[in-house]
C-alpha cells in the first residue's frame, strides 16, 4: 500500500516550524483584534448608557 505524504510533511523541519509560528502569530493577532473590538464596543455602550444614566440620578423634581 503506497503511503501518501502531505506536502507539509515533506517540507524541511525549519520551514514547518516557521509556518507553525506564523500561524500561531496570526491567530494571536486575530484574537487580540477581536478582544480589542469587544472591549471597545463595551466601552461605547458604557458611554451611551452613562450619558442617560446621569439623567436618571436626579435629586428632586
Amino acid at each position, binding site marked *: 500500500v503506497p503511503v501518501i505524504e502531505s506536502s507539509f510533511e515533506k517540507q524541511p523541519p525549519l520551514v514547518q516550524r516557521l509556518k*507553525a509560528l506564523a*500561524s500561531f502569530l496570526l491567530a494571536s493577532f486575530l484574537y487580540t483584534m477581536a478582544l480589542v473590538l469587544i472591549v471597545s464596543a463595551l466601552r461605547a455602550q458604557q458611554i451611551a*448608557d452613562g450619558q442617560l444614566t446621569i*439623567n436618571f440620578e436626579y435629586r428632586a*423634581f
Partner: protein
Amino acid sequence: MPGLSPAAHLGAILVALVMVFGVRVQDLDAGAFLGIRDVRGFSVYTPVFPGLAHIDQHEIFSPRFAGTKKIVLLGGSPVDSVGCDFTWSRRESSQRPNAAYSCSIAGQMNELLSAAGVTNWRVFNLARNGAGLTPMLYVYAQIRSLQPEIVIYGDDFPFLFLDNADANDLTAAQYAELEEHFAATAQTAGAWKAYHEHLVRRGLRPRFTPASWTDRPRMMASDLIFGRDDSASAVRRATIGNLLVAAFAQARDNTRVEAPLLPIRFAPLRNWEVAARAEPRPSSDDVAEIANPSPDPGFAYSQGLTLISTLQRLHGGTFWFTAFPDYDRRGDAEAAATLTAFGEYWRAHHVLFKSHVDLEMRPVYETYDGVHHTLYGNRIIAATLLSDLRASGLLEPSPGSP
C-alpha cells in the same frame, strides 16, 4: 489557521489576553502613525446633559454642528424630558426607566425640523433634571462662546427660583468662572452683582466639592478594562481603543432610532387627582418661599434671566422664557396675574416671554403628574415652541427648503 492544534489556539488566546489586559495595545497612540493631529472629531458627544463638570462633552460642541444655527433649551426636568413615560419619575421602582433622547422636547423639535426640511437649525438639550436658575447660568456661560441664535428657558414657574435658585449646587471654582463671564462684561456686571448679592443674602454657601449629581456616572465593568478616566469620552489621544469607541459611537448615532426603545407605558389605574397631588411639589419650605408674597420679591432672581438676555443681545441672539404647561394651575387667575407681572418685567429687559401654563394636556396620556410629560406631551410642547419661534420670525427656513 488550519493545522493549528487546540493547544496552540489556547496559547494564542492567552497571548491576546496579555496584549489587551497587560500590554494594553488599545491604549497605544495611533495618531502619529495614522497622521491624526486633531482628535476632536473622534470625541464621543452626548445629546443629553453631561454633568456640570463635563459640559464640553455635549453635542453642541461637536465640530459636526459648528456651522449649524443653534436653539438651546435650558431649564429643569420638564425641559430635560428624556423620560418617555411615568417610569422615569418612579423612584421606588427598580425597573429601568423608559428614557431616550428621542422622547425629549429637544429630540422631538429636531424631528419636526427635519420633517419640515429645515436643515440649518438644530435644537440642543442642555436642561437638567432638578436644575434651578444658577446652575443653568453656569451652563449658559459654558456655551456662550458658541453664540447660540436662540436660547429658550423653560420652567414650571417659579421652580427656577426655588431653593435660592439652586445657588449651593455650584462650587467656588464655578462661581469664579461665572464672575469671569458676567462681572467682567460691562453690560452684565451690575446685574451679576445684584444677583450674586441676593444669593449670598439668601444663604449661598458654594460647595467646594462637586455635588453628586454633577459627577460622572458610576463605575462600570468596562472601566476595569479601560481605566477610570474622565477624558475617556472626550478623546484626548488617538489611541486604537478611542478610535474604535468613536467609530462605534458614530455608527450608533447614525442609526439612532427616533423612537423609544421601550413601549410607552401609561398608568390607567392610577387615581390621577390623587397622584397629581401626592408628590409634594414644591416642598413646604418652597411653599413658604413662594408665598412671600411673590416668588421673586424685587425681581432679584430675575436679574439672572437678564444676564442671559443681555449676553444674547451682544451677539445678536435672542432669549425666551417660556412658562411650561401645569395641569394644576390651568385657569388659576392668581398664578396667571403673577406670571403676567413677571412677563412685563422680563419683556422690558429683552426677555421674550410666553406662557403656556394653560396648554391643554390629557392626564395620564400626555402628562403623568401635571408638570412632566410623556413622549406625546413632549411632542405637543415641541410643536408649540417651534410655532412660537416661527410666529416671531426667528426661525427662517434653510435656503432652498419648501
